[in-house]
């Protein structure tokens, strides 16, 4: 941010490596003198985030020993994280690519409403899921088109999409909460059916994260995303179709919103225009706390997911401890600051 070069002259501490893997290898090579396990751990990226998460876990274990570490609580945390988690994956792409997507929550709401209209529900659960995904992708494509070909600022284009998608969702649903019909309970089963103790939707979440990681780190699309976000002019000169790529990033984010819509339908058994309120802030915050630069060109999926887990665990801890919301808010603010400062320290001590 401000004063990167500052006194140390060295890498802005908040910048994570572009390629997670490379950096690990590099780090490992750089310190051949201390091959101990401890130093290995010390070299890991996202150390601050892991430490913050660990601290939170310790707090959980101390304050509510009987509840926090139970498997059902962990499942519950993962299930809670999965909706925003899926959205966060798409958001990570968009932000690395130099943009921002404020419309995620609203697009998810719209997709959930569209998929739960009686007309759609008549075709069964598979069509509902496809419908949600198509609606999400379509909305993302439209934002992307406005941004890359209409050359609108992402903030404004996706803000317009936010407002319009919420309006449309309200209109389609007539502002009612639309229940998933009993015929289509296969959707709800995603939340209630468990495999190896985990609800199906947690697997969806994991799958999206894994695919996101692979696409970002192992495909030309992913690598070009860094170029488009980090130095669009260089990307253009290298022959990358920056506009089309940008549009695809928003489509990808929309796709993730569509998947998130399926998850939220499963969890709440409804489609509603009120779903996903303020998700955009949570998702962006998770991405940024995970070390992705808001200016684009740098960031990791793992960081974003860790950032998100921190937020989810905080909320979980508060409720387990029966804290009141005001105190929760104050504590949340403090914890964010501490987590970020920890992350900074751990990065700095590495160089």
């Amino acid at each position, binding site marked *: 941010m401000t004063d990167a*070069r500052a*006194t*140390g*002259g060295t*890498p802005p501490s908040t*910048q994570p*490596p*572009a*390629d997670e893997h*490379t*950096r690990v*290898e*590099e780090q490992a090579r750089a310190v051949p003198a201390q091959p101990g396990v401890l130093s290995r751990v010390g070299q890991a990226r996202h150390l601050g985030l892991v430490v913050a998460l660990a601290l939170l876990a310790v707090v959980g274990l101390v304050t509510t020993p009987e509840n926090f570490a139970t498997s059902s609580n962990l499942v519950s945390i993962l299930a809670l994280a999965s909706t925003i988690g899926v959205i966060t994956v798409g958001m990570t792409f968009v932000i690395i690519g130099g943009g921002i997507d404020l419309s995620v929550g609203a697009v998810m709401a719209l997709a959930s409403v569209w998929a739960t209209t009686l007309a759609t529900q008549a075709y069964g659960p598979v069509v509902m899921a496809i419908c949600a995904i198509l609606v999400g992708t379509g909305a993302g494509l439209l934002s992307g088109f406005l941004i890359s070909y209409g050359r609108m600022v992402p903030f404004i284009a996706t803000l317009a999409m936010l407002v319009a998608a919420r309006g449309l969702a309200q209109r389609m649903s007539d502002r009612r909460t639309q229940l998933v019909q009993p015929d289509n309970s296969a959707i709800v089963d995603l939340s209630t059916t468990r495999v190896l103790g985990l609800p199906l939707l947690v697997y969806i979440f994991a799958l999206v994260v894994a695919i996101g990681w692979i696409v970002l780190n*192992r*495909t*030309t*699309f992913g*690598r*070009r995303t*860094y*170029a488009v*976000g*980090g*130095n669009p*002019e*260089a*990307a*253009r*000169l*290298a*022959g*990358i*179709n920056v506009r089309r790529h940008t549009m695809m990033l928003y489509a990808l984010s929309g796709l993730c919103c569509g998947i998130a819509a399926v998850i939220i339908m499963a969890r709440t058994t409804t489609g509603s225009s009120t779903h996903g309120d303020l998700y955009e802030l949570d998702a962006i915050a998770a991405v940024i706390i995970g070390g992705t630069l808001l200016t684009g*060109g*740098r960031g990791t999926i793992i960081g974003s997911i860790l950032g998100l887990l921190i937020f989810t665990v905080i909320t979980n801890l508060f409720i387990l401890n029966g804290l009141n919301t005001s105190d929760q808010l104050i504590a949340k603010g403090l914890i964010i600051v501490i987590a970020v400062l920890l992350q900074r320290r751990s990065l700095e001590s590495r160089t």
Partner: protein
Amino acid sequence: MSDLLVMRGIVKQFPGVRALDGVDLDVRAGEVHCLLGQNGAGKSTLIKILAGAHQPDEGTITFGGEDVRFSGPIAAIKSGIATMYQELDLVDGLSIAENIFLGHEQATIGFTRRGEMNKAASELLGRLGHGEMRPATEVGRLSAAGKQIVSMARALSHDVRLIVMDEPSAALAHDEVGNLFRVIRDLTAQGVAVVYISHRLEEIREIGDRVTVLKDGRTAAVGLPARDTPTSTVVSLMTGRDVAYVFPPRPDPGSHDNSPEVLKVEGLTLPGRFTDVSLTIREGEIVGLAGLVGSGRSEIVETVYGARRASAGQVVLAGEPVPPGSTSRSVRLGMGLAPEERKSQALLMNESVARNITIAGLTKYARFGWVDRKEESAAAVRLAEALDIRPPDPRRPVRTLSGGNQQKAVFARWLVEDRKLLLLDEPTRGVDVGARAELYAVIRRLADEGVGVLLVSSEVPEVLGLADRVLVLREGKVIHESDARDLDESRVLDMIMEGSAL
């Protein structure tokens, strides 16, 4: 031999500037064709058109016997034209290998083949004499020179018939330039043509076959033989007048011995970068720092300036100790820095030339924080004129200026106030011959007015010709100090490369 590339009557109009006004260029296969011209003559614009990054307003391009019109960079690359741009165009967040293959990655259905790419990148780097660079290293951690090498590797990674190099040597040190020339000779031996842009005339003479000279967006001469055209002819073609590549006369040795000390640096150390550096600069003295790229010169300068915090040692300016780590304090005490990378370290690209000039001395035109805009713009106009910044309109955004003129704008910034000490890091990088002479004169004049100057330059002749006293730096240590007149280029090169010649 038939021409590989023929450009005829190329015209390019930017808002308010006709950058190119009917330029012709012929390049033959297997030759090194040099493009010369003053700052702002239109060299970069011409090669951007050739690379498909700009569209010409008029004119024709024939490449390999066919009429072509490149709709975008990809089209030019596909036809076999690779370009190294003047402003480095790398992505900091990606690895060396990924930068080299950006846009033409080796991939199977979209999945990158990283091993293969790293191997190929290693080979390319090896060809450039840098087998030690690891392809997985992130480009953001490389020095300017390292980036230049990656940029070169990228140009080589394409299967090309023509490579364009826009000032590739600007960020390179002497031995690196040798490497570059070796690669260029390899290429031409295989029949690849090279378009080479540089402001260093001696390079042109060494590597070039033919020369095309641009002046004010027009072709002043086409296809002169590079070795046989006298320098004076080239210079007068470029500038329209005769400018000798000379340094201003300097005062007799020892004439500063009794002047008060402006700067005293003692035992300055920044671990890993430089150790125990001590130096003094007296009023009116120009002290040069010679050394290899990466020898820590820039960091010494930045530390003296307060932009970095030393771990030991102290800096005293005109008797007053300079607190470390505060540039605003240093500026207030009377220092000025023209940093090495003008784009990222010096310029406010979106602002006008005038504002770039006045930003450091703003308080001088302000009372209680209130800017006197008349006074400010008058000063900007005066300074822009003093350095002959072209086009002579200080209200233009600095981003639309050519590289050399941008450098002048940075320089002008420190003429604003009464400075005691100026730190000049590569002040003539990318500056043309004519302007160089002017800058040298300005620097000397400042010194004569009593300003102390610390000069860093990768061009040894510049250090030797301009400075009164020279410090030679190797691996972060001062290994030699003497009057500039007691040294010659080969001795300095011996010293700075001694032991590192491997």
